């Protein structure tokens, strides 16, 4: 099943580029619009080529359009919060609030409750954070927000470790990846296999109205999912893969390419689900072996030494193959 945003085909660029002068204005992405909200504006202190800064602007600009600017964002502690708001400056051009690392979903619940009490249900609430604030520290609050079906869209920008504090392992760090706390030493270097959690599937298990995954490499799909999420009331969750050049040891200019390869290899399945059932997947367009994805990243460099760890690469490939089977990612 393809998402509606991909049905228009202009052969010069397909529908994959940000804009296209041959398309009607309303069919172009929000990012192609010079009047986009720029929810996260220039001057922020994110690293060169930051995937999270990009993903946050993509998602929030889409949400701003979907809500006609009537929304509030609640931010967990993390890179996104730190690089955007060093006192007394802010990069946010939207109503924005930060409380603690672990309580963003609960604060978002509170904001939604307060707006409801004031009769302002036209104002929509977004909670957001990195994988640390979502998968680990804020997880109890998130699960509570889900099970109460509070009217919040929570967006996790997943860069697969605690980047702000110096690249420590999180519950979203993939196997074999090197972090400061999972060094590339010993017989099984890097993060252990068989650990960590898959929050999109956990969200799915809560049978909330809408769950989706996306990457910064497919803007039209990401924008569609934010727009779609805003058509529901109740708890919604979008999990966006945002590569981190610093923590992943990839080139700043490769951020989007790395995200694209994560999806094209099958390691990161891109799907959407309503009320606990998967309703759509974005198929792999040009399938690649996981090696192409891993090679671009210094955190996997230990797999490509002399001799290369073909056994570990094969285990990672098996994970991708399982995703491909499980979600039907190949035509």
């Amino acid at each position: 099943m393809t998402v509606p945003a991909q049905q228009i085909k202009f052969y010069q660029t397909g529908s994959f580029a940000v804009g296209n002068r041959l398309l009607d204005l309303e069919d172009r992405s929000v990012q192609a619009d010079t009047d986009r909200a720029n929810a996260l504006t220039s001057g922020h202190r994110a690293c060169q080529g930051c995937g999270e800064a990009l993903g946050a602007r993509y998602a929030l600009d889409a949400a701003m359009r979907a809500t006609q600017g009537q929304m509030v964002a609640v931010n967990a502690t993390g890179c996104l919060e730190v690089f955007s708001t060093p006192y007394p400056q802010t990069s946010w051009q939207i109503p924005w609030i930060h409380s603690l690392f672990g309580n963003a979903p609960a604060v978002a619940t509170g904001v939604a409750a307060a707006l409801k009490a004031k009769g302002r249900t036209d104002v929509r609430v977004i909670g957001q954070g990195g994988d640390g604030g979502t998968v680990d520290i804020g997880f109890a609050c998130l699960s509570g927000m889900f099970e109460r079906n509070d009217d919040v869209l929570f967006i996790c920008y997943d860069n697969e470790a605690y980047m702000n504090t110096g690249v420590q392992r999180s519950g979203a760090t993939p196997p074999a990846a090197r972090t400061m706390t999972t060094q590339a030493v010993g017989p099984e270097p890097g993060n252990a296999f068989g650990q960590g959690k898959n929050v999109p599937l956990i969200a799915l298990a809560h049978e909330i109205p809408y769950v989706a995954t996306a990457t910064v490499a497919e803007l039209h799909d990401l924008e569609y999912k934010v727009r779609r999420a805003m058509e529901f009331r109740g708890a919604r969750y979008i999990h966006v893969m945002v590569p981190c050049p610093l923590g992943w040891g990839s080139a700043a200019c490769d951020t989007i390419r790395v995200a694209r390869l994560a999806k094209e290899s099958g390691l990161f399945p891109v799907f959407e689900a309503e009320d606990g059932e998967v309703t759509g997947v974005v198929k792999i367009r040009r399938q690649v072996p996981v090696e192409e994805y891993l090679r671009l990243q210094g955190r996997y460099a230990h797999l490509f030494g002399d001799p290369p760890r073909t056994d570990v690469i094969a285990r990672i490939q098996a994970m991708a193959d399982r995703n491909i089977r499980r979600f039907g990612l190949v035509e």
Partner: protein
Amino acid sequence: MDKPFAITLDVGSSKANKTGAWRTERPVYADRMPPCNQACPAGENIQRWLYLAEDGSYESAWRELMADNPFPAIMGRVCYHPCQTACNRARLDESVGINSVERFLGDEAIRQGWTVPVTAEPTGKRIMVVGAGPAGLSAAYHLTLMGHAVTVMDSGAYAGGMMRFGIPRYRLPRDILSAEIQRILDMGVTLELGHTVTNLPAALRHFDAAFLAVGAHIGRRAYIPAGDAARILDAVSMLRGMEGGVPCLGRRVVVYGGGNTAMDAARTARRLGATDTVVVYRRTRDRMPAHDFEVEEAIEEGVTMKWLSTITHADGERVTVEKMRLDETGFPQPTGEFEELAADTVVLALGQQADLTLLQGLPGVDFEDGVVKVGDNLMTGYPGVFAGGDMVPAERTVTVAVGHGKKAARHIDAWLRGTTYRPAPRPAPAAFDILNPWYYSDAPATVRSTLELARRTSTFDEVQSGLDESSALFEARRCLSCGNCFECDNCFGVCPDNAVIKLGAGERYAIDLDYCKGCGLCAAECPCGAITMQAEQT
């Protein structure tokens, strides 16, 4: 101090933080040379006219094309389109059908009656062009646009040169040819048909400069021992004869040669009623100079090919053919094995020579291998006399000739002004590896339909038909725009720092160097490779 508890400073925007200071490299927009433009012998800006055609601005596209080549409808039929051979899209699916779109634009112009206005002030200079073929007419067109008065002289009864007397009607219908020539004449070019220039120095007295493009009209003969009754023609004369009447060839025709002219002669013979048409060529098919599709179409039409063979003797109703084999150097060697073929006529298609008597006795003019030596500016050794087309050393195609016409016009213009024309330096090539092809979706080429075979071999109707508007538009949109920004907004979208400024339709983008951190995402994600990263000066 009217601030909330513990707040001592106003909230400011992070825009005060000029992150551009982090940068070590900056993105720079650059138009690179797309492979199609690089390959075009007529120097067309193909990428640009395809871009204009993409949104249906056919007239603008045609005008862009006409800036370099006055014959789009002819080109769209007879050009061997080296642009498509070079096209980067072939690496994704199939080349863009540039030639088909060109033909569509050319036909559309004829349908709509579009013309090219001459806006330059008259220079008062008079230029003589000898030869009304593609090179001569192209030069006349460009020189007229530059404000010069041009007189074209041709010894033939019609204008067009080899386009009329060499290319068969089934490839180039004569109404199309005439329409595009007439458009040039309507711009004020004087045409003198049936005018053979014999005394060049005398003729030059009335002109400020001359461009010679008399072509190569003499069929090369090979010595073939022949009996009295043998009927041997050369292909050039035979094809030229088609413009006056119908040459009598008989039922069994043997064509000797392996070039495009041989294919034209064989296919023409089929259409004239020959039941057995055999092409005899001394090497193998892959060494044939004829283009693949010409050979293909000839075979489809029932022409038989006899490779590795030479004609050793011709007589009344038969020719003797000797089998050849290629030696280690690829040169054909005789084997001593002979066979006989029935033949009413033998047509020799062994190449053409230029008739250079016009230049005999002109001081300073040199010849080499039967053609005129010219400088880089196409000027002969005689000041003010330029030459181009088949009579100078070059590949002999219509498109190359048209390119010579343009090039000569520029140099003649400069020479008349006492300056030197220097072409702008060519930008760096836009090779496939600078593209990010992820952003292009798969779309195979639109194939032009060919006339069904039965009609093809009995009539001279055009073999290939053109594209309708929707498929021409589809085809134009398949262009990747290699190395040239087509405003897809990718750079504007993918910048994590909002440091790309969109300037509006047709104006492209600028980099906000106050905030650009130099990450290079815009360059990496540009589909067409129009952004380069350049090191900052330290």
